[in-house]
């Protein structure tokens, strides 16, 4: 009997390797999606110089909400913002102006900071859609005013958002 038991022990070793071959195995499948770029520009208020002086330059501060024109940008990608200054025109006559820019996380004086030359560095890749507020100001020289006919001069500031 003892030898028989010994034999069964030997048998157990013979069979065991077969059972070990039935192991857990696995595989994997990728899953992917691409979220498209999105951007909007909403005008909050126009840049309004009002009545401009013939004796002194008229200036509006880009970083003051009581003076600036403002727009809100919503975007979800690493955006490059480009600003094109307006050409103010009345009945075919242009009135030169210099444009100044500011940007901030909110439309408040405390958040707005000047952007030199209205040249924006490329914005970072956000982790979610985010907003940026742009303030616009500028100066109309009185020397240009005196040589222009009376009238309402208007134009558009163009904001371009690109990846």
């Amino acid at each position, binding site marked *: 009997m003892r*030898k028989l038991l010994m*034999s*069964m022990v030997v*048998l157990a070793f013979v069979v065991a390797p077969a059972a070990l071959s039935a192991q857990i195995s696995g595989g994997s499948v990728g*899953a992917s999606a691409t979220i498209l770029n999105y951007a909007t520009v909403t005008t909050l208020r126009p840049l309004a110089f009002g009545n401009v002086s013939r004796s002194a330059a008229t200036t509006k501060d880009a970083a003051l909400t009581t003076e600036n024109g403002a727009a809100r940008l919503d975007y979800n*990608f690493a955006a490059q913002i480009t600003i094109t200054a307006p050409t103010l025109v009345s009945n075919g006559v242009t009135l030169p102006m210099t444009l100044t820019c500011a940007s901030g996380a909110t439309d408040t004086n405390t958040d707005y900071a000047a952007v030199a030359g209205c040249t924006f560095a490329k914005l970072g890749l956000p982790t*979610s*859609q985010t907003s940026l507020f742009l303030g616009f100001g500028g100066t109309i020289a009185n020397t240009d005013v005196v040589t222009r006919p009376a009238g309402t001069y208007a134009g558009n500031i163009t904001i371009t958002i690109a990846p």
Partner: protein
Amino acid sequence: MSARPSSGWRSLLALLGLVLFARPWAPALHAQSVTVDRTQALAFGTLWRGQTKTVPAGDPLYRGELVLSGKGKYNVSFLLPTTLDRNPAGAQLTISFGAADGLMIEKNRNAAFDPNTGTVVTLNGKDPITLCVGGTVIAASTQAAGYYQAQITVIFAP
């Protein structure tokens, strides 16, 4: 000289008998094997922020697929991601799997299953079985742009 085998011979014969008895089982256990021959990624393509997009398990172009071959019966379980991740900058896109987002395609039948609970496959050594996985991604209204991805891990246990 005795006509009866000694106790040593009896043990040897018993061992031989047991081995012969046991051998038919051994090949069956050795034959337990599963191979993933081919995979296809679950592809949601492009979507806008705020959009929900579903790829059904029955969609042959965009569903995830594993084509299996081998022999044996396996419990199949899935380690399902809850988000797809964007690199760089760590944004996440929610993904979910419903009760009908699994589909097993065998030679003569298709059977839906819930990938959250898994299924059982029986491979016959000849015909492949295709496991298909669909799902739904939900882009938040503030979802950042980019390419999001994750892995679905499939485990086969005998």
